């Protein structure tokens, strides 16, 4: 590849995304002003941006972020505690897998939001509802990833380890676990995304404290620029969580990959 081509590609990689963003911003700015979208209910970009900027200094935003994130974190902990052991057990035992298969296949397609009415009926509008919801939704992706991860462990490696007299725990540590880790990190990322969505959904639909409820409040009060500002904030939070997890995953797997390299020489 010649130097000129490389230079052109580098400029394009910066200019084109910027152009895309500019076009999108212009569209959001002009559509309400030109009447393509109704002006009263869809504020132009500048107003949304202004509201968002105003929110940044507002304790309401950060309080809501804290509420949302803490529920999200809690639901992730629960999901991990349930999904990882269960998934690994199901992946390593044929009997275990068969026992749980039908139940899991039946429960999996049930939209967790369908449970909102029951939870509200029984528990009222409590914050724990969104944790329950998010836990349920986040468990399944992680469960399946754990299952696939364990099932994917190289059987030759396992046999070799056993032939060399490595005990169960040693085998788990040196053979099974390193093989499962990439699957778990992928599962964690998917689950994290699902959990965040469900936490915010719970806040919006049920009206419990958090970013979702701020959207609801702004919507009911007709403060649409604030409403969109909060929606944007939620999107940014989601992006942030995903990017953070991606970075963490890269570090974990980098460490893991080099450790595996060492392990081969031991």
């Amino acid at each position, binding site marked *: *590849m*010649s*130097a*000129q*081509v490389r230079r052109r590609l580098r400029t394009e990689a910066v200019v084109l995304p910027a152009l895309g963003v500019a076009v999108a911003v212009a569209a959001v700015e002009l559509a309400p002003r030109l009447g393509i979208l109704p002006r009263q209910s869809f504020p132009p970009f500048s107003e949304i941006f202004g509201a968002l900027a105003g929110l940044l200094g507002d304790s309401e935003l950060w309080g809501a972020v804290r509420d949302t994130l803490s529920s999200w974190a809690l639901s992730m902990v629960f999901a991990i505690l349930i999904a990882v052991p269960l998934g690994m057990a199901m992946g390593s035992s044929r009997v275990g897998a068969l026992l749980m298969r039908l139940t899991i296949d039946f429960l999996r397609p049930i939209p967790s939001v369908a449970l909102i009415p029951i939870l509200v009926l029984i528990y009222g509008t409590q914050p724990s509802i969104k944790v329950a919801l998010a836990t349920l939704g986040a468990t399944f992706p992680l469960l399946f990833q754990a299952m696939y991860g364990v099932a994917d462990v190289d059987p030759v490696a396992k046999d070799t380890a056993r032939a060399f007299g490595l005990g169960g725990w040693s085998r788990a540590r040196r053979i099974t676990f390193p093989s499962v880790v990439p699957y778990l990190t992928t599962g964690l990322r998917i689950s994290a995304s699902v959990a965040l969505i469900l936490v915010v959904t719970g806040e919006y639909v049920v009206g419990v404290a958090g970013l979702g409820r701020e959207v609801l409040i702004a919507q009911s009060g007709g403060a649409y620029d604030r409403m969109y500002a909060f929606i944007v904030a939620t999107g940014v939070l989601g992006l942030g969580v995903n990017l953070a997890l991606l970075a963490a995953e890269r570090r974990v797997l980098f460490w893991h990959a080099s450790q595996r390299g060492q392990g081969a020489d031991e």
Partner: protein
Amino acid sequence: MLMLDVSHLSKTYGSGSGAFTAIGDISLSVVAGELVCIVGPSGCGKTTMLRCLAGLLPPTSGAVSLDAQPVTRPPRQMAVVFQDYSRSLLPWLDVVGNVTLPLKAAGVRKPRRLALAGDALAAVGLAEHAHKYPWQLSGGMQQRAAIARALAYQPEILLMDEPFASVDAQTRAELEDLLLDVWTRFDITILLVTHDIDEAVYLADRVVLLSGAPAIVTESLTVDLPRPRDQIATKEMPEFAHLRAHVFAAVKAAGDQARRDAASEASAPDAAAGVAVGPDAAA
């Protein structure tokens, strides 16, 4: 009468210091009805050349013409059989579907499509497997399907890029004989690129020898062996051995030269046209 004419073809990838010249200057012509084999050392740009001839890759300079018409995009009278059949047959279509797809694109009506496909499949011996999927067939059968697809298209000239490189020796012998049979039966012209010297001498009317990159034609050898060729009888002939040895020596010399050139340029402190991109990239 000339069919395919290649005049001073050259192809250089990139420009400036990162440039790699795969083809230096290739001129050759193929007469209608000939079976020509092109041989050269590994990485000499054989596949690049074939893609230029097929109209898939624009050359840097030089001209390719078919029936006196310049080739700038894939011409209708040309069909190509690629080396990797598993990546050239469509896995979501059965054999008949694959064979008739180019005809469909050409606007041929269904009854005629099926008739042409039937003839082609019968010629390559795949008639009973017409409704199987490529992944249900062995490597040799898949390549037969690719050949059938090219035949059903009714080309005047068939270009083949190392078509038998990915099958085992026994299958290769069967496919070589199949090719000869199909060549006479369908009365087409064939230009076949190969690295297998035995195969080149066994099949060809003429063997064209290429040097290493930047490739040029070092020799064009007429193969005078009698037809029809036979895997045992022909290969036992002393003329076969002579030709084979000659070609082998030429290819080896070209390969050695290419290695020497690469080594000297790597050690030269300010090489003007450095081989920055490896030879493997071209082929």
